[in-house]
């Protein structure tokens, strides 16, 4: 380990660590634009100039490796002057159109100017550089006037996506980000350039003028787009999900998500939700309270003869999948799920990161809990089963001579024959876990309330257990599972943390 001092704080970091990363560990954020831990170092914005004792001039923290005994000063007068001058240079041609800029409130230019910039400009007399907005791709607009040429987007496309369609065109103060004349920014992971852009120069058309950054509530979640299990943040405004952004997890998705996952959020806001439990009375589904619906369901389960079949969604939480199995526990049980398939789209520059062909987040969880991938035989079994439980599979019709208990966010026509319909929360409305393709168990958190009387599936299913066994929280539901299913033994919400844990890790298997 190398020991150094940053702004008076002594720290020890591994050899090869960059000063800017060491500073983070010392609790010091060195202002920067071009540096991004997920991209090759460019060293061009010159914003992270810091004073290093014994160095003849200021050094950039993003390209300088730590050395033993190094003394770094980010707040020395020279370093502060240098940063202030970079901010002045960046602002002379910047339109300062923050009131109409989507980035305002989460803009690094705004933040650092606010933090240590000058109040007045010395550039007042000259016209600012102007270039028209360009349409770069299906979801990306380029506003060159706001661009500070940090080249994060160029490096992402070149080194991470490895589809180099962007470049720096022209020279000097005429330079802008250019796109290959015959290409579009339509790589399956291209949307990341919008997140990477530290200013409001690369914008998502989907999010354009939808919300101000300070109006957004942010919740940690896991993408439901495929089995990769990318960590995401759900941005909600007034309980409506308006944006999905990557949440860094170096073990799963680094700093990125694919466009499929980014754009696949509208279903979380569906307006046609089931808002009350329904029971069949006189051949019609009628809204009732939870007690009545749960009583009816318990009665059906208790009185069921013959086989029990569960058809579940691989987008359901691990907790719900476990409990669906448990409520059918005493019966001759068959469980299955079906996963939608799509085209695989890897992110070339990151090992083991791709939009996977299996387009559901919890395929591995369902398999670990004994569900069969493929519903064909389960559907056949359902026809003559005594009781059939369907967990949020609106696209699968499950004909049965027995009793159908349907737990869903929406009510498809095919489920209108159900004896009981229980309204459940979607992934944005509950606590839960998914198990990704590498058997990493990851938590997600609620971003908004469920509509009406809808409750999380773990709760609804838990209520179907015997009175003493019912979990009081998602964490307790998970604990029940950890106690019952070997694969989850030793895990708990506390040990999963924000980054998740691989199954087997607790038993000493490496991450």
């Amino acid at each position, binding site marked *: 380990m190398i020991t150094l001092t940053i702004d008076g704080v002594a720290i020890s970091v591994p050899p090869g660590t960059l000063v800017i990363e060491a500073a983070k560990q010392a609790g010091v954020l060195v202002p920067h634009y071009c540096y991004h831990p997920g991209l090759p170092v460019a060293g061009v914005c*010159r914003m992270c100039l810091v004073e290093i004792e014994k160095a003849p001039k200021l050094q950039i923290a993003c390209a300088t490796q730590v050395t033993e005994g190094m003394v770094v000063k980010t707040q020395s007068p020279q370093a502060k002057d240098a940063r202030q001058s970079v901010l002045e240079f960046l602002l*002379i041609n910047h339109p300062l159109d923050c009131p109409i800029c989507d980035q305002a409130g989460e803009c690094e230019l705004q933040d650092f100017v606010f933090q240590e910039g000058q109040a007045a400009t010395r550039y007042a007399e000259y016209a600012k550089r102007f270039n028209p907005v360009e349409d770069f791709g299906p979801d990306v607009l380029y506003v060159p006037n706001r661009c500070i*040429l940090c080249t994060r987007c160029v490096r992402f496309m070149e080194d991470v996506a490895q589809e180099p369609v962007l470049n720096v065109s022209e020279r000097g103060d*005429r*330079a802008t980000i250019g796109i290959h004349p015959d290409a579009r920014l339509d790589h399956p992971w291209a949307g990341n350039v919008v997140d990477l852009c530290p200013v409001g120069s690369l914008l998502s058309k989907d999010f354009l003028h939808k919300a101000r950054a300070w109006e957004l509530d942010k919740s940690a979640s896991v993408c439901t787009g495929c089995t990769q299990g990318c960590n995401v943040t759900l941005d909600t405004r007034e309980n409506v999900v308006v944006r999905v952004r990557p949440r860094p997890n170096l073990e799963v998705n680094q700093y990125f998500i694919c466009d499929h996952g980014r754009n696949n959020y509208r279903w979380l806001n569906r307006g046609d939700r089931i808002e009350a439990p329904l029971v069949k009375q006189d051949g019609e589904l009628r809204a009732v309270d939870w007690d009545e619906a749960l009583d009816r369901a318990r009665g059906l389960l208790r009185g069921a003869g013959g086989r029990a079949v569960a058809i579940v969604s691989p987008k359901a939480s691990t907790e719900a999948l476990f409990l669906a199995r448990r409520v059918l526990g005493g019966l001759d049980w068959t469980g299955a799920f079906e996963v939608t398939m799509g085209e695989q789209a890897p992110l070339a520059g990151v090992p083991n990161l791709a939009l996977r062909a299996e387009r559901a987040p919890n395929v591995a969880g369902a398999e670990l809990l004994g569900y069969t991938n493929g519903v064909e035989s389960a559907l056949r079994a359902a026809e003559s089963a005594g009781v059939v439980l369907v967990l949020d599979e609106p696209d699968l019709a499950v004909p049965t001579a027995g009793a159908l208990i349907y737990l869903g966010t929406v009510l498809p026509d095919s489920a209108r024959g159900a004896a009981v319909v229980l309204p459940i929360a979607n992934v944005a409305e509950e606590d839960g876990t998914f198990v990704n393709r590498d058997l990493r168990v990851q938590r997600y958190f609620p971003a908004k309330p469920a509509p009406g009387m809808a409750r999380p599936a773990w709760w609804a299913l838990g209520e179907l257990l015997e009175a003493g066994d019912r979990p009081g929280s998602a964490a307790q539901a998970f604990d029940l599972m950890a106690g019952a299913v070997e694969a989850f033994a030793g895990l708990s919400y506390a040990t999963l943390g924000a980054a998740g844990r691989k199954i087997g890790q607790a038993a000493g298997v490496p991450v």
Partner: protein
Amino acid sequence: MGYPHKPHPKETLVLSKHFGDAEARSYKGWVKRGGYEALKQALATDPAALIEEVKASGLRGRGGAGFPTGLKWSFMPQEKKKPHYLCVNADESEPGTFKDREIMRWTPHALLEGTAIAAHAIRAEVAYIYIRGEFTEPLAIMEKAIADASAAGVFGAIKIYVHRGAGAYICGEETALMNSIEGKRGNPRIKPPFPAAAGVFGMPTTINNVETLAAVPLILKNGAAWYKGLCLSNPKSTGTKLFSVCGHVQKPGNYEVTMGFPLKDLLYDLSGGMRPGRTLKACIPGGSSVPILTREETEACLLDYEGVVEKGSMLGSGGVIVFDDSADMVYQIMRLARFYAHESCAQCTQCREGTAWTTKILERILAGQGAMKDLDLLLDLSENMTGKTICVLSDSCAAPVVSGIKKFKSEFEAYITGKKRPVVAA
């Protein structure tokens, strides 16, 4: 096009001995003049011994920085694990500099011989000569020379290629040049890694200027002591140097003198002095990137690395730009700033924005719309543009501005106060 002037008696003809001699251009003509003997001898010599010999000669880089050549060669890895490369910087783009062009036009084989010797010394298989795109005549000459000499087999296992630039000043910066050779945009790279560790194609690379390499065969032929003896002032500056004199002199051109030669004599004797009735006002001694000298500084300046620094400037590339009393220093400095603003690669914030802003302020002063506070602003911007970027283009823009305001402030003030009529449109 012939060579325009006869040698002056005060010149020391070493590199330029054959300038104007068309026969020396050809392979046979060069061999007849003793060419390629040094290479033959070098190829039979241990690389380490070659490096020692060049170190002993005191030869320093002629591209501008003046780094000791032998020392630079010795930075190449001792244990060769990867291919080594030699790059020859023939991108001579520094305003006021046109010496390498003449070396390539008249003595292409001198450069090739030096290139092959250097390649052997650093154990490189391949050498790239990166020629400025506008140098069409030198390009054709170099290509023919390589073909002829290669056909004669003088380079042994060493392969020499010409790579033509596409007209960017910044590609003369060594790491931008390497990016350009690789087919990338000519942006300077952050250092470290230095070229000797990871240069062109990420391999250990040495890069030398044309004039530096052209001197190497003569050092081997005549001995390091001979070269070291070519010194009129400071023993740290040895050998001869080509100075390209342009501007307000009667006989502009390339002149070769021994290190330590008085700048005054270069201007008044070799270059024929000022035009009748005119007096010297200022001089940029080392290409457009170095600080401007006043008449007094110029006339007291000795032309070697230390002598020019002593007077507040740098020897640089040896491009001597002369201004007489008719010159408008504000306009000249604006032209320089405009050049740097045009050529900035746009990577570093200070350079991209600072060079353009500096130009705008100077243009405004020349349009009669400047204010006194603009001078302070220019100095402050220059300070912010110095020592803070990847390469020194930004510093180069600041140098003439700072020295210009310091030394010719009254000319700026004349525009600002309205004493002088505006010369550019507002």
